[in-house]
């Protein structure tokens, strides 16, 4: 009998960043069952972490109740990564890479990444760049068509201060010709980024460099529609029917791009009575995931 596990693991990405993760596994009759059963690698959303409300917090237990293990990680985008400069979108795939490698080293043979919101866009970028033989599929929850486009639309909707275009102009001046190596960076606040007030709850915080690689017109790798056609593994989109942050047409369009590129193992499921977080309706979400995972091996 392999006993239940619930433990925190820490390990380095290849540039030395420490990734923390929470491994949740249930009881298995034999060790081979533990390693053959799919394990879900969970990647959090904007400023999230593996205990953030919604999917990161709720899904591991729900999966365990259904015999599925999970490994939830904090990437460099977790917590304040985007605020203090360490959370560079492009670099964050090293964290996912380290987590997949770690699971594979442990012996897990069927790994599925579930990326939520920002984590979905990170997961796509990882999977089109690094083809690990043990990675068997992606689940993309609340996946935006393009992080830069989402940001621009939202800031324009609420008439943010400063505006999207103004941030872009300042970012070019601050970061200069080579944003990647620029030593010059600065934290900035966007008021009215999430709503119509100046209250802290409607504010967004970045550094110019983190914004550049995640949200700016130059953030090529965060424009998921431009890179997703290279994805050849099975994909499941799950999306809240009432998602206010990402329009339901966005995953539909991403699915169309995948199909046109020849990947026909792509499903999309809309979750009723859920907004951006599908675990607002676990009764609908969990069976969808379990059924899809049952076909992974």
């Amino acid at each position, binding site marked *: 009998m392999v006993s239940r596990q619930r433990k925190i693991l820490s390990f380095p990405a290849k540039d030395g960043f420490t990734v923390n993760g929470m491994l949740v596994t249930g009881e298995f009759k034999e060790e081979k069952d533990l390693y053959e059963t799919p394990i879900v690698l969970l990647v959090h959303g904007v400023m999230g972490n593996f205990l953030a409300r919604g999917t990161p917090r709720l899904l591991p237990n729900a999966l365990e109740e259904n015999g599925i293990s999970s490994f939830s990680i904090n990437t460099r985008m977790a917590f304040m990564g985007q605020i203090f400069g360490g959370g560079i979108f492009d670099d964050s795939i090293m964290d996912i890479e380290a987590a997949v490698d770690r699971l594979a080293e442990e012996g897990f043979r069927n790994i599925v990444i579930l990326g939520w919101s920002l984590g979905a866009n990170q997961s796509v970028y990882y999977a089109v760049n690094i083809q690990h033989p043990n990675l068997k599929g992606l689940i993309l929850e609340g996946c935006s068509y393009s992080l830069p486009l989402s940001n621009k639309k939202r800031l324009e909707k609420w008439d943010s201060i400063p505006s999207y275009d103004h941030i872009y102009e300042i970012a070019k001046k601050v970061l200069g010709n080579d944003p990647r190596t620029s030593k010059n960076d600065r934290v900035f606040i966007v008021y009215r980024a999430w709503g119509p007030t*100046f209250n802290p709850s409607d504010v967004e915080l970045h550094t110019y460099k983190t914004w550049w690689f995640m949200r700016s017109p130059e953030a090529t790798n965060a424009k998921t529609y431009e890179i997703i056609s290279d994805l050849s593994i099975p994909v499941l989109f799950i999306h809240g029917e009432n998602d206010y942050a990402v329009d339901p047409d966005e995953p539909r369009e991403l699915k169309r791009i995948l199909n046109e590129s020849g990947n026909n193992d792509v499903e999309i499921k809309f979750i009723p009575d859920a907004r951006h977080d599908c675990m607002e309706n676990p009764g609908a979400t969990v069976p969808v995931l379990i059924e899809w995972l049952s076909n992974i091996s």
Partner: protein
Amino acid sequence: MDYMDQELVSIPFGKSKIDGIYYHSTFKEGNRADGNTIVIHVHGFLGNFLDGSQRFLPPILAEGGYSSLAINTRMANFGLFFGYGILNDTIPQIDRVVEYAQELGYKNVILSGYSLGTSIILRYASLRNDPRKTHNINGLITLAAPYSMPDSIRRRWDYWGSEPSYQEVFEEAKDIIKPGLEGTGQDRTILIYKARGNSYCPEHTEIYTYRTWWHLAGPEAKYAMAHKKIQNVKVPILLIQGWHDQVVRHEEAQQLAQLALNAGNKDVSAFYVNAGHTFEDKEEELGDIIVRWLDRRFKD
């Protein structure tokens, strides 16, 4: 590690939860396992239970026979940025965590705080200093405790020429949050450039809302003034301070210890470690000091 079990816990707290990691010491050698004593660790500025002393101390203490509970309060992570990280609001959270530790069967509950966390635990211990009450604690450990958080922040901002200045933030805060008329004022997130160094770089920037600043760093943030709180603490106190701390001056520990002694507390100890604010590279030494201090007072 065969001398402890580690478990992620979510402690029910009203409609929410307090997250933490419970490190249960199972160390038995030489009758080391105390079993009755637990140390609750409270994080520093923007910290959480995965960082710094909250992360490195529990395994060292577990090897010494002491269990730990490292928690996230409402001031963890970005609580200060979005308005809910108010120091005094952590008190009910600590109450609940102390209760939880007692529910686990621990008779001796020790609070340990790092930097900002020392302000939280000193405020707590000054309030809960009646041993006849439920939320009784048995000792305090402060790591890099500022004599007064408002003074410490003001001094640092003045030193680096922060933008805006301490006085400017104070004036703006009065306008925005209308202190004394709680509930009628607004709040807003603010950036302080050159708060921790001589540049506009992110690592030299601080972020608050006017309200969180007011209650932690403002001149009227009385709950964050350790020198006023430590005089009401009746339980044994261990203060540990780095000689080369760039954030808290080394004499602040001695001053705090003296105030506690003058107020009649007969069990006050202060130790200095050849380290900076984070105690980097001195983790084992720090742990050894704490284990010895605990052994003398709480070992069965």
